[in-house]
């Protein structure tokens, strides 16, 4: 039985990271120049890591699929970034941020990792301010905070509704500086298609140049994956159109464990689906729940009249409105964590109280906030989000409540990493959303930005040296090695196979079908029967795809359909693994809700005795079921409780 070694340092929780840093191996400056590091991805994690590693003196090669590093999807994060600064003097501390994150993750994350995350959170804010990130400020000139779901303190720093953009542009500017100083070499419009192992260590990648279609090889002493999550398995998600799980998936296929694939976060406040042609779902920031109140009609006949277009929400009297989150969770009200809010919305809609033409929507109402604070204040806080909503839906949220519904947003699962953020493949690291590490079964709002930047600025630049210290005598690699040769041949075969199918349907045709299977059976509510059906359906659809997809054009130029097909081929397999993992985990926790395991009140029912582990899936080969290893989660410092947001 394979033992999973997470390499958690010894010592009391608050000392672990300090102890680690005090005793870890480092690489001296002269040797750093001789070591190459590949970083795939330029989001918050990738850009901050590439810049920081470059500054340290390593020779960094940074890849992204977009035309510019600034386009990575971290840019779309709206609400904010958490840190334990306690500027508002409301009782926050590193421990409390750690505790809230562990609890928010439904006790399925590693204590040591999460504590480290909370510990470095403050440095992130300092770093960003120094880079010129224009965070919101008070009139006194100091930084402003707001509150977010799952916390009883205000610890979220923000830059209007564009925090992710500003943080990413900060990291991008650091990266640009490193590029200018020739510390980092940038490769844009290139997609990683394979990982190359030499003697069991990660030594390079194969990419496709998306402009010329050429397959290119790059070698390095270590490879860092920062390619985000796999939420687009669902076709409709809040992810960008080009976000994909393929880089991570190639690592899995080369032997890296894929951890907790079933943990996907459904974000409660997205603009509802409106038609078959829809290409993506737009998120409305969680910060809106600070001032917006969520409700559906109390009476079914009102809900029906609204759906039929006979009644307007503003005509429903106050006493006929069901503010169900405030009713069910008085202590946290509209600010319960995302998984709880999403499920509550689904519950109301399934019970027949949903609004909108499809009945799959609930109201997010600002009339109270506008009366209390005035329109100007609300506009200053959320103006850009309101404008965005109005452009899409053609309704004015200042006058009529917004309609929202949950949608896939973030994947907590990802490549398994140890405390040093290294996978089980030596020399292969994973950071940001691409790894599984810090959010357990559910991520709290404003924590993704925190984790991405923590990994990139303050964790990986230390921990990677522990590995590289042993590599200083290893000379640079030639990309002519047989391992590279073989990897490139595999890719060409796969590509040619796809190009030669010449079937009848477009890639999106299959992707939409996959999305429906995922949403229906591996979505917000799962059960054993449905998951088994999902696995069968996905396998059947995958077979159909490989027999009937049509990819027009040539592969020697820009070919978007080919890009999409290569990604979709992996999404089928990711979707299947998600279903496997969800089936295995016979409990409900965080974003993973099995209808068989719930309390009489409909709350998630965790099973700590049997399922307090990280599921680490290992690839066994084409058409073979993967094998699962367990990394036990031991809680030394926190006592596990049933999450309670009621009192």
């Amino acid at each position, binding site marked *: 039985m394979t033992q999973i070694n997470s390499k958690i340092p010894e010592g009391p929780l608050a000392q672990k990271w300090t102890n680690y840093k005090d005793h870890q191996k480092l690489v001296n400056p002269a040797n750093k120049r001789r070591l190459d590091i590949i970083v795939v991805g330029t989001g918050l994690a990738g850009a901050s890591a590439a810049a920081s590693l470059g500054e340290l003196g390593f020779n960094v090669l940074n890849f992204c699929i977009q035309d510019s590093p600034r386009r990575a999807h971290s840019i779309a994060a709206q609400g904010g970034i958490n840190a334990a600064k306690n500027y508002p003097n409301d009782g926050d501390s590193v421990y409390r941020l750690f505790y809230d994150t562990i609890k928010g993750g439904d006790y399925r994350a590693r204590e040591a990792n999460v504590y480290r995350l909370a510990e470095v959170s403050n440095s992130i804010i*300092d770093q960003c301010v120094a880079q010129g990130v224009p965070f919101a400020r008070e009139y006194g*000139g100091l930084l402003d905070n707001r509150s977010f779901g799952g916390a009883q303190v205000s610890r979220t720093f923000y*830059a209007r509704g564009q925090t992710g953009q500003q943080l990413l542009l900060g990291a991008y*500017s650091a990266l640009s500086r490193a590029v200018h100083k020739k510390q980092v070499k940038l490769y844009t419009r290139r997609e990683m298609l394979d990982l190359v192992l030499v003697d069991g260590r990660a030594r390079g990648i194969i990419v496709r140049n998306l402009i010329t279609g050429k397959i290119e090889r790059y070698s390095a002493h270590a490879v860092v994956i920062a390619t985000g999550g796999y939420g687009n398995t669902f076709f409709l998600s809040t992810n960008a159109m080009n976000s994909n799980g393929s880089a991570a998936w190639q690592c899995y296929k080369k032997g890296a464990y894929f951890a907790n694939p079933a943990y996907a976060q459904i974000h409660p406040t997205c603009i509802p689906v409106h038609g078959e042609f829809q290409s993506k779902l737009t998120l409305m920031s969680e910060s809106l729940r600070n001032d917006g109140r969520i409700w559906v009609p109390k009476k079914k006949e009102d809900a029906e009249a609204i759906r039929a277009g006979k009644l307007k929400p503003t005509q429903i009297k106050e006493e006929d409105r069901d503010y169900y989150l405030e009713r069910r969770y008085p202590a946290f009200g509209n600010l319960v964590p995302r998984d709880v809010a999403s499920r509550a919305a689904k519950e109301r809609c399934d019970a027949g109280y949903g609004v909108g033409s499809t009945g799959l929507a609930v109201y997010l109402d600002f009339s109270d906030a506008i009366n209390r604070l005035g329109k100007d204040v609300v506009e200053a806080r959320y103006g850009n989000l309101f404008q965005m909503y109005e452009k899409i839906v053609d309704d004015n949220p200042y006058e009529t409540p917004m309609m929202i519904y949950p949608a896939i947003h973030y994947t907590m699962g990802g490549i398994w990493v140890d405390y040093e953020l290294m996978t089980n493949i030596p020399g292969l690291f994973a950071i940001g959303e691409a790894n599984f590490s810090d959010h357990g079964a559910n991520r709290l709002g404003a924590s993704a930005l925190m984790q991405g930047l923590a990994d990139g600025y303050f964790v990986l630049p230390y921990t990677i040296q522990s590995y590289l210290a042993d590599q200083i005598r290893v000379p640079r690699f030639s990309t002519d090695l047989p391992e590279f040769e073989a990897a490139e041949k595999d890719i060409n075969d796969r590509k040619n196979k796809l190009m030669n199918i010449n079937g009848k349907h*477009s890639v999106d045709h299959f992707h939409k079908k996959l999305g429906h299977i995922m949403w229906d059976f591996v979505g917000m509510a799962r059960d054993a029967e449905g998951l088994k059906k999902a696995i069968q359906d996905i396998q059947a659809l995958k077979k159909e795809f490989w027999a009937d997809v049509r990819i*027009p054009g040539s592969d020697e130029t820009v070919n*978007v359909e080919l890009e999409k097909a290569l990604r979709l081929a992996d999404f089928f397999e990711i979707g299947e693994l998600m279903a496997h993992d969800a089936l295995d985990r016979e409990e409900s926790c965080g974003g993973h809700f099995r209808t068989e395991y719930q309390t009489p009140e409909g709350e998630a029912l965790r099973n700590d005795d049997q399922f307090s582990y990280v599921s680490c899936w290992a690839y066994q080969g084409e058409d073979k079921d993967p094998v699962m290893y367990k990394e036990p989660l031991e809680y030394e410092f926190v006592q596990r409780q049933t999450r309670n947001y009621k009192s």
Partner: protein
Amino acid sequence: MDKNINIKVKIWRQNGPKEKGRFETYELKNISQGSSFLEMLDILNEQLINEGQTPVVFDHDCREGICGMCSLYINGHPHGPDEDVTTCQLHMRRFNDGETITVEPWRSAGFPVIKDLMVDRTAFDKIIQAGGYVSVNTGGIPDANAIPIPKDKADMAMDAAACIGCGACVAACKNGSAMLFVSAKVSQLALLPQGKVEAARRAKAMVAKMDDLGFGNCTNTGACEVECPKNISISNIARLNREFLKAKFKD
């Protein structure tokens, strides 16, 4: 209420940077006005694939108006006829039944066409690399609240920082000038004490790179400001001029 409309789209097709381009006109039936412009192009591409033709290439990614990847010059406007939106946020309710919609790539010497509607905007990255940053390394930073910043300055910096780098300013400019883009970054950092330290060096380096890459001279027509999806003001250009001239006269 949103209806279904029939439209024609006249789209620029070009196989590669060196090849000659041409317009092709396609007919689309029953397009919901509730769909976005890019979803309409998705539908067109689906149609083209089903007919065995090659789909139209266009840049897009986040589809919520923030990544800056989408472009397109639609009916005489960068990002189309709606105000303060990117192409991905433009909806078909802005168009009428029976209309012919002309779709072109950004046209500017600084943004060569790669294929169809996709252009190369790496020039913007090069300008940022020339100096669009505060020269700080990771770590060793004072506390975030060590330097108070007046709220109005911070807000103005944020206004400038909202730039998404889409290039609509260049596309709209009759002079192919990138001044709005450059001035937004220079302004953001010049307004903050953290960026002030190297403001002179930054302004000079970024303008030099901008000129080097062949962007034109600003004549203050203000077209950039009108078409900017993020409402970046040309008063930033005045600030850039000020910063640049101050720096040069000091030398």
